């Protein structure tokens, strides 16, 4: 690629990501480029332009970076200006504990039925499922082949974006309890640590 072409591509990527409302996959950018200019570029070109832009932002002290979330590129600010922006923007509501727990189960066990989630949490999760669907964090992904053909739930693209994950493979590994060690004493300590780690909200008095 000629230097002018590289500059043009960087400008194009920057402009696209500036107006995009959600993470934009490289493939989508390639299609838009072809439609606009009638020439062909590859996803590798886009990737190179993104890397060049990030390097330029960093070298010139800009607050922008292009992150890879939900399988696409997203232009966002760096954490160091967070406090300032928070003072200006309304803070987004945090998910409640029961929503988070339900979401975690779905994220790691998807596709999963409501009955399985209910069993894992020991409570009826109808409300949580409804709310998570409203928030577009989960969706119905199909039906199980078991009796009654219950709905199967899975996470959405928005879920990945919300947690800053590029794909489901990036989910942190599920904390393992039994497999970590076979020494019962160490295991006991780990369980204790897990129990103590639970949010202090949970410490009711009885």
């Amino acid at each position: 690629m000629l230097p002018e072409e590289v500059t043009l591509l960087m400008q194009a990527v920057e402009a696209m990501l500036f107006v995009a409302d959600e993470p934009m996959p490289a493939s989508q950018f390639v299609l838009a480029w072809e439609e606009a200019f009638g020439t062909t570029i590859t996803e590798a070109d886009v990737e190179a332009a993104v890397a060049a832009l990030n390097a330029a932002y960093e070298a010139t002290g800009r607050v922008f970076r292009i992150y890879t979330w939900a399988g696409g590129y997203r232009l966002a600010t760096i954490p160091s200006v967070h406090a300032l922006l928070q003072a200006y923007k309304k803070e987004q509501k945090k998910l409640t504990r029961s929503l988070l727990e339900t979401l975690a189960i779905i994220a790691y066990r998807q596709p999963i039925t409501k009955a399985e989630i209910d069993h894992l949490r020991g409570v009826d999760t109808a409300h949580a499922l409804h709310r998570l669907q409203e928030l577009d964090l989960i969706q119905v992904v199909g039906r199980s082949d078991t009796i009654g053909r219950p709905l199967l739930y899975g996470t959405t693209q928005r879920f990945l974006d919300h947690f800053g994950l590029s794909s489901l493979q990036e989910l942190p590994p599920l904390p393992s309890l039994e497999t970590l060690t076979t020494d019962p004493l160490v295991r006991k300590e780990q369980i204790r640590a897990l129990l103590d780690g639970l949010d202090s909200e949970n410490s009711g008095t009885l």
Partner: protein
Amino acid sequence: MFCVRLATFEGPLDLLLYFIRRDELDLYDIPIARIADEFLAYVRLMEELDLDGVSDFLYMAAVLLEIKARWLLPRPVPVDAELPNTQEDPRQELVDRLLIYLQYKAAAERLASYAEARAHHYTRGQAVAPAEAVSVEPVPLAPASVSDLAEALEALLARRTVIPVHAVRRDVYSVEAQQRYVIERLREADRWSFRDLTQGHSRGWIIATFLAVLELARLGQLRIEIGEGIEDFSIAAVESDVYAS
């Protein structure tokens, strides 16, 4: 003496974990009889207070009692003391469930930290569209309790202006007809005081209208608003676009 913060337990598994943590119990050696009794005491209290979600707790109470019963049964002594005791511990299934639950609780905490880190990055216009859209809750159709409404109705009936005439004549009012009446009046004005709406009508008519208002509120076709005093309440037309979906 109980001093309980009930709302802190999401479900029966949380309550069990709370007992285990509070008494520093060994998860692999839960004193099942004691925990089952304590759990039951808690469930009875929930029932007394008529709290929601008791059924989830009742199911777990049954599970605990079943384990307790099996625990109390004499277990066959292993024929050969040298062999490891292969007899299954009746508590095993519960322990496994608690462990898996703990695992997902820990995963949820970790996810929360991811969301926290992600929230430190701002995208253009983020707070405008999606963030607002998810947090907006529809205006409650009746931000008043049933007893508020009942009191208001009672007050209205007490102050009705038509003196009952003691000639027996059956007045028949239908809620459907009153619904049509209320909707028509709401076309004239967006907001009506229930008192003005029913001024000068008989008791039966007012009651039918009251039921019509409740039905319309349930259908989302009007909104009930209660002010400071409970002598009266207002009904307001609902902007059709808000509840169209």
